[in-house]
């Protein structure tokens, strides 16, 4: 049943604030211009308890009147909210985790029903490990890092990994990700590089991040160099050696198989002569061959 209420008649409860992060601009504009069109969802009562529509609700002025769809109890209201939101705008995985965790914490559904119905309804795999990831993400992430990840629609698995970090490390990561304005894939890449460096060097993430401040250029490249010093060394050496033969002589990117590859496109007989000269020059290049024998320990 839909009824109109004034904003100050409606009760709120933070347990139901599933969405975090910034409110999208188009939503702000729509509420300013049209008010609330789609009814909020609440638990019925003289002062209904708001379950769905917190972001729109927050944009209202005190005296505004709003349509409210009233549901029998919290359980029914949550189900209606999930159904509605899945249709209107699909949740991100982090938002889904928030819903699952809150449903679990408040025992609105038995665990079995969460696995059988809620998770699949949200498009998640209906298994225990996913449920645990949802709970861990909500319980284990600091609010700052949670907001950073929410804003980038981070996948559940990545968020669950970060939720296992100590609070100081989470704080360092949150600052690093937002300070560098990383995209989601850059965050994942950076974290994948930071973890083994931390382990190898017995450092903390904040110490590594501090060191990065001294480096110039792309920060992911700098992390790559820190993580893979040998590979970086070989690549740099090669880069210098191959410079005179740019675009003609290359090295397989994985260093596997054949050593060098020579390629050229012949358009005229004169070019063939040029290429032959170049090949001869390469064959005389002692630095290349010194590198090869060192590289492969070739005796």
């Amino acid at each position, binding site marked *: 049943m839909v009824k109109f209420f004034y904003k100050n008649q409606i009760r709120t409860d933070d347990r139901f604030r599933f969405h975090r992060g910034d409110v999208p601009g188009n939503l702000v504009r729509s509420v300013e211009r049209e008010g609330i069109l789609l009814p909020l969802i609440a638990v019925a009562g003289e002062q209904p308890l708001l379950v769905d529509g917190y972001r729109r609700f927050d944009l209202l002025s005190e005296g505004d009147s709003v349509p409210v769809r009233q549901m029998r109890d919290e359980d029914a209201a949550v189900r209606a909210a999930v159904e509605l939101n899945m249709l209107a705008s699909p949740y991100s995985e982090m938002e889904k985790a928030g819903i699952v965790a809150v449903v679990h914490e408040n025992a609105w559904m038995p665990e079995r029903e969460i*696995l059988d119905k809620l998770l699949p309804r949200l498009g998640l*795999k*209906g*298994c*225990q*490990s996913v449920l*645990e990831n949802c709970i861990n993400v909500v319980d284990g992430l600091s609010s700052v890092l949670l907001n950073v990840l929410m804003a980038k629609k981070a996948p559940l*698995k990545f968020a669950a*990994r970060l939720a296992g970090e100590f609070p100081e490390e989470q704080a360092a990561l949150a600052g690093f990700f937002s300070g560098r304005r990383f995209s989601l894939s850059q965050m994942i890449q950076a974290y994948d590089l930071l*973890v*083994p460096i931390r*382990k*190898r060097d017995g450092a903390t993430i904040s110490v590594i991040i501090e060191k990065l401040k001294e480096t110039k250029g792309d920060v992911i490249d700098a992390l790559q160099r820190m*993580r*893979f*010093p*040998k*590979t970086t060394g*070989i690549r740099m050496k090669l880069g210098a050696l191959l410079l005179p033969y740019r675009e003609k002589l290359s090295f*397989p*990117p*994985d*260093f*596997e*198989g*054949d050593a060098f590859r020579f390629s050229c496109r012949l358009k005229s007989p004169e070019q063939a002569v040029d290429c032959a000269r170049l090949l001869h020059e390469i064959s005389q290049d002692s630095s290349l061959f010194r590198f090869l024998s060192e*590289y*492969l*320990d*070739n005796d």
Partner: protein
Amino acid sequence: MIEKIFVTEAAAKYDYTKEICDRAGLEPEFIRDDTAYRKEVERFLSDPVGQGKRHLLLDVFKGEFFRKCPGTKGKVCCNYYVIDQTTNCPFDCSYCFLQSYLNLRAIRFAVNVGDLFRELEAVFKKHRFVRLGTGELADSLALEPLTGFGSKLMNFAVEFPGVVLELKTKSAYVENLPDVHGKPGRGVIGWTMEPSHVVALEERGTATLDERLEASAIAAEKGYGIAFHLDPVVFFPGFEAAYLELVEEMFSRHRTLDWMSLAGFRYEPSLKGYVEERFPGSELLDGEFLRCSDGKYRYLFPERIRFFRRLVKKVKQLSPKTPVYFCMEDARTWDLVMGENALADPVLEPIFSREGNDEKQGM
């Protein structure tokens, strides 16, 4: 190790099912089939990979058990045939590809071994030489105390001339294997060997290095050929000395092996998440890896070559007659480590020259 046994409707009528349950001393839970296991059991596990390894699902396998080892694109193939009778394993190695490969988390054990033996008999009669094993999707002897399957299979296979059956394991369960002296076929027990450091960090639940070496001596006394697999070779601080020492230990027990394989640690991208999540103390991913043309990550090519050279040199010094081969390496690695034409070396004949599909003339 095994905490629960599940029996499918199809497996319930087999005597072998009862034999296994009795040996385990566990009351089985009856379920319709593997799908029911997935729906009713597996999805309620918080660590499906780890907990699934403690569940034994006795089932009936309807397809063909025997197939050629798939090898890897672009890598030299060693003509090995595999029997898929068991899938998954109670041991828990950080590097195990089964973690990301299998879609059923319990250990599935096919009790219709009569069907397997009929299939094998037809194959053995048709081929002059077959080298085969059961250790592709499982450890061949990890469940031996419960199932005795390794012994049953060995008893059967060694009666056929030209058959070389390898049971590959990280266990020490060889006590109950049959004596195979004087049999027309050849029984080989193969152990994956790793320095103790790797065993302790990366191979949960397996026998220690000493136990494996001890078991290999017992197996040799029973007439088995011995194979050792340095697979995967894991790079960690001090790995070179550790592996060279390991090789010395191996050859102090056995003058010659039936064969020995080498392979650097490599992994599919999908394995990484499992290692990170399930093995927080693992050193497996600490090295420097590069993505290779087959999509797998491997240690840097020059580092592998350099180390394999040292290793092969050591083996050749200690045991010139032991055939050493690479598993999952390309022809260039062979050339660089073993020298050109290494594949034509007569020492390698038992591995490469006699193919399983080399059918008998006139049959």
